[in-house]
């Protein structure tokens, strides 16, 4: 079980999405998931082995690494990808529930189980809000854990058992910083897409409701 599962899940969601939703799925696949697997994972692969402190004291490197990287960037990134894709499951479950209901009653209860109206519209809007909220939460978490999105080449550590303050060098800081900025940019783009999709759906359905009421009044 690996990222293939997430890919299948997102492909399933694609069927019930709007146009903007499909762009979001494409963005998540290409610029986040594929980039993570093809490039980012390798950059952070040996981060602990290549973290070097200017001291021979055993245990000092371990303690300093743990202090400066409580949760590695790459793990936070993976968590973010998983959490942000999960709200789409709500939509998939709701459509499955509708299809089940139709089977159970043996008649057509909905125009089409995958059509975004009524209850499914609420579920879809909630999933969009959750996606945007989770993106923001992870960005804020990244920012607070690492004091911004910069990766310094050198950190000074004075925890026990390190004697005095010791220079510790992080491996590939520039490359890590570039990819972190990439992560932030794609997250922000995803938030913008989610909010645009939200506004689009709300406007579309408000106009529909208003026109229906207008027609009824005239009749």
């Amino acid at each position: 079980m690996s990222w293939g599962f997430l890919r299948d899940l997102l492909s399933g969601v694609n069927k019930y999405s709007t146009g903007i939703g499909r762009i979001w799925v494409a963005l998540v696949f290409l610029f986040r998931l594929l980039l993570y697997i093809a490039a980012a994972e390798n950059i952070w692969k040996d981060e602990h082995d290549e973290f070097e402190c200017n001291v021979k004291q055993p245990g000092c490197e371990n303690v300093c690494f743990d202090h400066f990287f409580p949760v590695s960037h790459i793990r936070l990134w993976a968590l973010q990808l998983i959490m942000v894709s999960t709200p789409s499951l709500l939509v998939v479950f709701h459509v499955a529930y509708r299809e089940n209901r139709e089977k159970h009653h043996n008649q057509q209860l909905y125009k089409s189980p995958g059509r975004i109206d009524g209850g499914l519209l609420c579920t879809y809007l909630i999933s969009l809000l959750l996606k945007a909220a989770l993106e923001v939460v992870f960005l804020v978490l990244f920012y607070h854990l690492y004091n911004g999105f910069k990766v310094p080449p050198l950190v000074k550590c004075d925890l026990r058992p390190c004697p005095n303050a010791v220079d510790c060098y992080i491996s590939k800081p520039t490359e890590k910083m570039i990819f972190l900025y990439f992560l932030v940019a794609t997250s922000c783009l995803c938030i913008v897409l989610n909010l645009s999709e939200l506004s689009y759906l709300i406007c579309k359905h408000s106009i529909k409701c208003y026109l229906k009421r207008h027609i009824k009044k005239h009749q």
Partner: protein
Amino acid sequence: MDWGTLKEVLGGVNKHSTSIGKIWLTVLFIFRIMILVVAAERVWGDEQQDFVCNTLQPGCKNVCYDHFFPISHIRLWALQLIFVSTPALLVAMHVAYTRHEKKRRFRNGEKIDIEELKNAKFHIRGPLWWTYTSSIFFRLVFEAVFTYVFYYMYNGYQMPRLVKCNAWPCPNTVDCFVSRPTEKTTFTIFMLAVSGICMMLNLAELCYLVIKICVKGSRKTT
């Protein structure tokens, strides 16, 4: 999950491409993605571990490596491939949108053959021509930009055997040795050559499409 998903997405676009576009896709998959995954990744796999500096000063190696390789070749290539493949998605989205519109018209009562709709090959004319041409243009731009970035970042395409580093905390100037420089230079030149071929294919496709539309236009007026 890996480059396979990209292959599926682009494979879908293949149906609606010109012949030159199909050749471009084949070159992309065989000579770029496959070479990257099967060969280049192994060559660059141990790049930092085998980057050796003539000093015992802790931290010097890390700092020198970071200074000379701000972003590794292999990552730049992965980024280049992702960016260069993305414009093809525009075409895929346009085709999906056109198919969706035809289905909607069918549902509203217009007579359209459903079998024909499912297997339809959309000819590159009208709005699709503009989408397709813009996607080729963007591909060219991305290829050129990445080629330039490579040249600018690494002062050419040759991998030096030895780099002299005097960044702090290295004491004075220190000799640092890059691992497998010849093999890396070979692969860099190979990828550059294939990138050049892809650019030429894109240019040829662009000219072909423009000439085709001009010829059609002049036939209509005569």
